[in-house]
């Protein structure tokens, strides 16, 4: 069960051309979501090495959201398939390291998908809040 008062941090991995502008758009519209979500932008979600995700969990994050380009990716037509492969590899890596793979989520966030983005962050935030920290205090 979750530790009382546990405030998880979420790492959002965005993409320079599509989802990061979408996250900006949420900000411009003052669409609220938990401030616990930190953002790091990549050129394209296909660049994300699965180890980066494991590294995030080891760096204090309790949840990771890949804000992918989906079909809008300016670089790669098959970006969703490629990113899915990275995520599947990451799931396997997390399992092997005893981390609940449900802490990692991916969603296509378009450049104007502000509400969708806020919804995904809130939902992951609530889910990992229930799960508690990756390494419980004192473990």
């Amino acid at each position, binding site marked *: 069960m979750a530790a009382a008062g546990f405030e998880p941090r979420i790492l959002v991995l965005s993409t320079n051309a599509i989802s990061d502008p979408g996250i900006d758009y949420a900000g411009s519209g003052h669409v609220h979501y938990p401030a616990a979500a930190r953002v790091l932008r990549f050129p394209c979600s*296909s660049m994300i090495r699965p180890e980066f995700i494991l590294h995030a969990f080891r760096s204090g994050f309790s949840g990771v959201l890949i804000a992918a380009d989906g079909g809008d990716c300016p670089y790669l037509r098959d970006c969703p398939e490629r990113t899915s492969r990275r995520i599947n590899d990451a799931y396997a890596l997390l399992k092997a390291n005893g981390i609940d793979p449900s802490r990692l989520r991916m969603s296509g966030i378009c450049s104007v998908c502000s509400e969708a983005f806020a919804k995904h962050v809130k939902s992951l935030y609530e889910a990992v809040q229930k799960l508690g920290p990756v390494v419980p205090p004192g473990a």
Partner: protein
Amino acid sequence: MAKVVLDKPGEAKEPARIGVYVCHCGGNISDYVDVAKVAETVAKEDGSVVVSKHLMFDCSDVAQQEMIDDIQKLKLNRLVTAACSPKLHEATFRAAAKRAGLNQYLTYHANIREQSSWPHSDDPHGATEKATSHVRSGIAYVKSAQPLDVLRSESTQSVMVVGGGVTGLRAALDLARMNVRVYLVEKAPYLGGHVAELASTYPLGEKGIAIVQRLVSEIQEQPNITVFTNAELVSFKGYVGKFSVTVRMNPRYVVDRSPRFAEAIEACPVQVPEEFDHGLTVRKAIYWPRGPTVPHLPLIDLGLCTRCGACERLLGKAVRFDQPPENLELQVGSVIVSTGFEDYTPALGEYGYGEIPDVVTLPEFERMLEFGDGSGLRHNGHAVGSIAYLYCVGSRQKPGEATTPGSPAHAYCSRFCCNATIHNALDVSGRYPDVRLYHFYRDIRTYGRNELLYEKAGRAGSIFVRYTEDHPPVVSQRDGTAHVTVQASILQNEAVDFPVDLVVLVTGMVSRENRSLNEMLSLPIGPDGFYREVHQKLRPVETNTAGLLIAGTAQAPKDIRETLYSGSAAAAKAATFALKKELELEPFVAFVDPARCSASGKCVAECPYGAIELREQGDFGKKAWVNSAVCKGCGACVAVCPTEAIQRAGFSNDQIRDMIRALGVAEEGA
């Protein structure tokens, strides 16, 4: 101005001396984020931060000068700015760093407005922690940043324009007048596209073909434009400044001039509907294209030709059935895609289309107006004394309302059609003053000066009847007469029946399929099917592939005036490449450390651009190698490398790990 000293490669090895500048953005940031605390926290916890300030506007001249002075006086070698979205001002601060003599890529712009103060205006404490965290990641980034040089690439001073409608003609002409070499490629056998079909264009009533001919005659005076009609792109490779494009000139099977073309066409026994007239007239298998054509020759539609030999007997060697297609490889620095639109074709039975003979579309009606024989307006064997225009057919559809199978609903307004219809009504009133004109509309969008046309049409006798989208009109046929039944808004949606001689469906614009071109050029397509620009306002004719530009109605519905604006805009943008001998490109490409590379070939297979290959590299042997001019910097290769030998300049794997670690730092007391 300070003296500018470019970084030496060794500079990055010196200990980092970082300047941090947190922006208030007036109050946009500081109203929610405690900017003083952010600046103080990062300075306290990191010894490499030499100076950490919070300024009213980082982007102001005064603030930029303060940064430059600090860089020079305090010997800073890294710059972190924390302000609005990097989309707005990252370039500003890179330029400031450059002016101070610092390599522009030893900087980081942290987003604490769009991604901190604004979305967390409900949580100032959380917003401050997040802003601190984003600044920390910027500090982590610059610590291991390497100075980078912009990439330089030779620029081919020529441009290819794909699509010879009015947009492409305008763009070609503008470029030629800037002394840029232009290749204009049109798939159809004639120039002018849809505009050539228009009987009368708003607001001045000029014939479409006259507009086309004016542009074409100006083009013919430009020796540096080469026009290809009946031609298409078959291969496309390269990068901005150096695209290599293969154009296939499709055979016309008529290869030489002859005085007997008219006789030969007369002799041809094959008759098919003429596409140019929307099938309202017929043409032969050997025919003259209906717009300007280069070379000025008729052509034979080989798919229809029965090889009866009738034309061949008259034209002799001017006909050559074995004429092969001819491929031409051309080098260009940039490409403008202006491939236009398709008219929306109503589904069978949509407002009676295809079922009731007196129902036509506006583009069909435009052609009908050209066939008048002086005996008044006639259609389907009867005189036309009344016309009903039905607006917004195929435009402004709701999801699920799509009438073309497999196509998404056309949610957009097609923009030109209200104006075109009202102008058409004025044209009809002028030609046939006794014809009664009814307009059934949802909204009239005669924006700008066209509003005057709307008023004029009302005064000329056009009757405007509004309906709401929930109650669209119904077209039926009774005793051989078309009827439009409409629930008029002004009569509290009471149904009113109008028997009319002709129903004109005001159809909008839809995107062209052009699948092979779209795939060949990797053109970005929006949800409406039209090409999508990088930024609607700031970069309206660019795509994410540098040097690949879009213009005209291939991008979105536009009227003639607007499409010519965009043709000129794309020409101006193309000239920014074509008028330079050398181009500067962002250095964010993949690079390989050959010492680490295991030559797995995974990156080679992963790259969709063919930018990576295994090649001999001296003592290292056969290792991965990146053609930096072809690399787009997506980083897909980085993710699959088993040894981390391939990484992305300006965003290395260590930088990423350091940034993630910095973002993960828990606040005291949290």
